[in-house]
């Protein structure tokens, strides 16, 4: 009897420590975990999260007919809550018939140009950000699930190359700060782990909603490197790599960050 109890006890101990090890194995952090409680509350509360204003604007734009075709997003895609659910977890992706990956804003602009016959919106345009936030919001809480394939993998590898290469007058790579020194303080602020889990984000430093591209350009300016043109494929390549790092983490759009 005592022996049976002992065996049972041992099994329980092993099982629980195995479970703990599984959780502990994934040490990746979202920027959400490293910001103060007040900001976490702001993000979690839809009435306090400034990004939700853009999501609301996005829902209006979704239903608004535009362009020579006078079509709205909803005319083709119907209710975003069903048609866009999970879509943002899989971007950047290669649109049907295309040869290279695009980010979500690139996909929205493709739709405008091809299906609505409307002008492309420039990067960080308010309406473009709002549409992007609205689409990505439909995947909030879902795990990031990057797509794979020979072309995507090649771009992702290019992105990792950029991430690891030193550049700029300060001769720093993304990896030096966001891998080797993540969690330490740069100018008093904790360096995040480069998991783009909530774009577009409302960044307090910007007092605005902004894209991952804007965030990447901030870092490039910081290390005094030449920023790529706004339509450069390098940003998409970097995003592909960063989303791979964040694979499985829940999407937070619209995230709030300091």
């Amino acid at each position, binding site marked *: 009897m005592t022996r049976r109890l002992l065996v049972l006890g041992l099994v329980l101990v092993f099982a629980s420590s195995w479970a703990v090890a599984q959780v502990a194995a994934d040490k990746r952090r979202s920027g959400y975990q490293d910001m103060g409680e007040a900001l976490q509350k702001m993000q979690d509360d839809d009435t306090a999260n400034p990004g939700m204003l853009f999501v609301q604007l996005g829902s209006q734009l979704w239903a608004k007919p535009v362009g020579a075709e006078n079509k709205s997003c909803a005319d083709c895609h119907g209710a975003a809550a069903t048609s866009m659910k999970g879509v943002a977890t899989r971007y950047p992706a290669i649109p049907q018939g295309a040869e290279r990956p695009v980010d979500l804003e690139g996909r929205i602009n493709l739709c405008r140009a091809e299906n609505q016959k409307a002008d492309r919106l420039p990067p960080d345009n308010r309406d473009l950000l709002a549409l992007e936030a609205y689409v990505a919001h439909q995947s909030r809480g879902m795990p990031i699930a990057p797509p794979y394939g020979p072309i995507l993998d090649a771009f992702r590898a290019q992105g990792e190359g950029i991430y690891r290469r030193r550049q*700029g*007058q300060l001769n720093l790579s993304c990896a030096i700060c966001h891998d080797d020194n993540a969690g*330490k*303080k740069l*100018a008093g602020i904790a360096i995040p782990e480069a998991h783009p889990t909530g774009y577009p984000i409302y960044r307090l430093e910007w007092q605005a909603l902004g894209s991952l591209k804007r965030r990447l350009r901030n870092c490039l300016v910081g290390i*005094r490197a*030449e920023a790529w043109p706004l339509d450069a494929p390098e940003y998409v390549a970097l995003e592909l790599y960063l989303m791979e790092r964040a694979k499985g983490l829940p999407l937070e759009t619209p995230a709030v960050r300091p």
Partner: protein
Amino acid sequence: MRILVVLALLLIACPIAAQPVTPQIVDDSIPRSLTGKPGDAARGRAIVANRSVGLCLLCHSGPIAGERFQGDIAPSLAGAGSRWTEGQLRLRIVDGSRLNADTIMPAYYRTDGLQRVARAFEGKTLLSAEQVEDVVAYLVTLKD
């Protein structure tokens, strides 16, 4: 003709103006001042504290009260003047990669071996020779 004279003058003047002082490295230090003169510690302190000039406090902390939001990526500058000699400090600022190829500290007085430098900073050192000397002069005063 006048253009030729100007060109000739430029050709003569340019190498002198653009030629950076070549620091002489002896062991793990640069014993001699880059300018031939000692720096100014007060100016050096201002450079260290300035987030867009010295950039030091982004990564280091230092005994500069009133400067909030200092970094903790690199060692504190406090006591730097007792840990290193003037010449050792100079080499660490000029080009720390001469001592440690993997160092993350930018080389403050080097323009080669860099990639994709923003146009506004291309061919320019992070600090001038005078500024390097000012910073060295300040750091040697940090004894505690």
